[in-house]
């Protein structure tokens, strides 16, 4: 029995292999994700039985529980899921491009760029009474722009007859430090409760998200993921190393710019709603690689699902473990992520 299932259109215009192993893992992970989301919808300060949740989702529920599920929990869980997916795929692309398993959007400064933009936004658009002069809905836009700008600055600064992966990482780390300093500056200049607002965002939390955000984030992430799947082949080639990749006819520098843009956009969208949820972009692709190997066609969907599971899980723990206090999801992803990072260094 073959390892692959071939897929061909007429006259072989489009053809590719489905890896059986990755189909198996994808289906398992989809089931796990759905179960976790269901569990997360049921659990919380008010316990709602999974059966009732399903009834409500099918449209037959009513009363207080329906409100909790539809307005409070469901958008939050969807956001957590898609933020996780976005961060994981962003990390997967970066790791393939930089060829260093330790790269991730938070380490090379993309998340910090979003943070600076958010605190700047909160500072600039406040009047003397510390009320915001524009709608808070612009905050994600600011974060997205910040992340994109820093991503591009990192890329441009690392150019020097093309860019090398190592230079990209180092410059990212340097800029991240500067961004953190600027974030601190704006937090000090602003009033204290504003700093508390910004701080919650900086840690990374899906607290208080709503359907409007869901409507923005899902199409954006889905679109970018499709793009990522289309360029997966090129990442595979680039992983072979610069010489081999150019040897087989790949435009290394042009592709690298493309990867940066897609990866930064994914991280930017995720950061814009949920703030700096760390280490997901680092962990998810690694776990995925252990399951299905390094081929990006399979790696991207698997990392995406694992990323979603990580963030939904972290949010569930943060919401329920220390009731009635809510701990931001970012704290838990860091708690799992940092030891995992150390383990990776150990193993290599």
């Amino acid at each position, binding site marked *: 029995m073959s390892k692959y299932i071939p897929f061909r259109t007429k006259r072989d215009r489009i053809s590719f292999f489905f890896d059986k192993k990755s189909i198996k893992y994808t289906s398992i992970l989809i089931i796990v994700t759905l179960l976790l989301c269901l569990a997360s919808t049921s659990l919380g300060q008010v316990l709602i039985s999974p059966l009732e949740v399903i009834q409500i989702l099918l449209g037959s529920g009513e009363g207080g529980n329906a409100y909790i599920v539809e307005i409070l929990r469901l958008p939050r869980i969807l956001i957590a899921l898609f933020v996780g997916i976005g961060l994981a795929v962003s990390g997967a692309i970066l790791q393939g491009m930089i060829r260093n398993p330790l790269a991730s959007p938070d380490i090379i400064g993309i998340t910090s760029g979003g943070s600076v933009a958010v605190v700047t936004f909160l500072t600039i658009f406040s009047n003397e009474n510390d009320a915001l002069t524009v709608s808070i809905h612009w905050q994600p836009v600011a974060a997205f722009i910040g992340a994109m700008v820093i991503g591009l600055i990192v890329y441009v600064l690392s150019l020097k007859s093309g860019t090398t992966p190592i230079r990209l990482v180092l410059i990212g780390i340097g800029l991240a430090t500067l961004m953190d*300093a600027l974030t601190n*500056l704006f937090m000090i200049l602003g009033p*204290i409760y504003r700093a508390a607002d910004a701080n919650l965002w900086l840690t990374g939390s899906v607290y208080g998200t709503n359907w409007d955000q869901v409507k923005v984030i899902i199409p954006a992430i889905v679109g970018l993921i499709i793009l990522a799947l289309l360029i997966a082949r090129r990442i595979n080639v680039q992983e072979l190393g610069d010489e081999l990749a150019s040897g087989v006819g790949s435009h290394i520098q042009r592709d690298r710019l493309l990867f940066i843009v897609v990866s930064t956009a994914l991280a930017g969208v995720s950061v814009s709603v949920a703030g700096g949820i*760390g*280490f997901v972009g680092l962990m998810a692709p690694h776990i995925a690689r252990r399951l299905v190997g390094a081929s990006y066609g399979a790696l991207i969907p698997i990392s995406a699902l694992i990323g979603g599971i990580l963030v939904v899980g972290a949010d569930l723990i943060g919401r329920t473990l220390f009731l009635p*206090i809510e701990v931001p999801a970012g704290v838990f992803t*860091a708690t799992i992520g*940092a030891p995992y990072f*150390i383990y990776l260094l150990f193993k290599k």
Partner: protein
Amino acid sequence: MLFQSHMSKGFGLVFSFILMLVCMGLSVVLGYTDTTIGDAITAFTTNNTQENAYIVIRNHRLPRALIATCVGASLGVAGVLMQALTRNPLASPGIFGVNAGASFFVVLAVSFSQTLPLGMLSWVSFIGAAFAAGLVYFIGALGKEGLTPVRLTLAGAAIAGLFSSFTQGILVLNEKALDEVLFWLAGSVQGRSMDDLVDIFPYILVAWILAFFISRHINILTMGEDVATGLGQKTAWIKALAGIIIVLLAGGSVAIAGPIGFIGIVVPHFARSLVGYDQRWLIPYCGVLGAVLLTAADISARYVIMPEEVPVGIMTAIIGTPFFIYIARKGLKST
């Protein structure tokens, strides 16, 4: 390098030292409250505790100038030792996660106990700094490749990420603690009293002296582990001693002034362009130039958005980042 002979290096050091004294003097005289050199001299020679200028100069500006000098010197020396030890031109307390570790421990202590005396906080931050530095070094050295610059930088960034995420998590749950530590977290030499310095100074002083004495051995160590062992050096001891010095200096600095980055990167590079690679000259140069840089940054921090002040840690980040990027672009070949 600019200075070739021992004579010129000596003159350069004396000149830098004078520059440092000038900066300290300026730091005492300049600021929001208008004072002249005359006022400063009067403040030190007489005992007129009612005078406004007296209070500003003796109670605020003088401790501030002394703290900036000590912290700057310590960070400069810590930076050059770290770079020699790890053979990594980008090593410095900030990049190594030392600052993030100290910050986390301090925030943790503040949120658990509201009445902790400041003397205790210094110890807490010492422990945090040592813990983070040890962790990063240990993690970076794991595995077959050993301690390469990139691995070390990545390990530092990850540990810093972990600690700062914990710090923010605690601050989210405890807004009162946020209020108390926010200014400290940005790194500042303002609003510290003489006592803060006096508590820590003995450790820093010991570390300076030790650094000077092991400079000869560091020279040998930078030739490479194998060469150093071949020449009969007990490399493990020298490394451990240098590690302790770094923790004392970086931990002491962060305890007094909070996390101040980039001095440890910028100063050693500048000093190397003056006197080359001999650690016996580099270490004193880095100390004096570090003091000059931090005092100057602190003076400029008072003027940027007057009447408010920018924490000096932010000033050094703004000065230091372009420098860091320049080194990263130039390549990591040289130590």
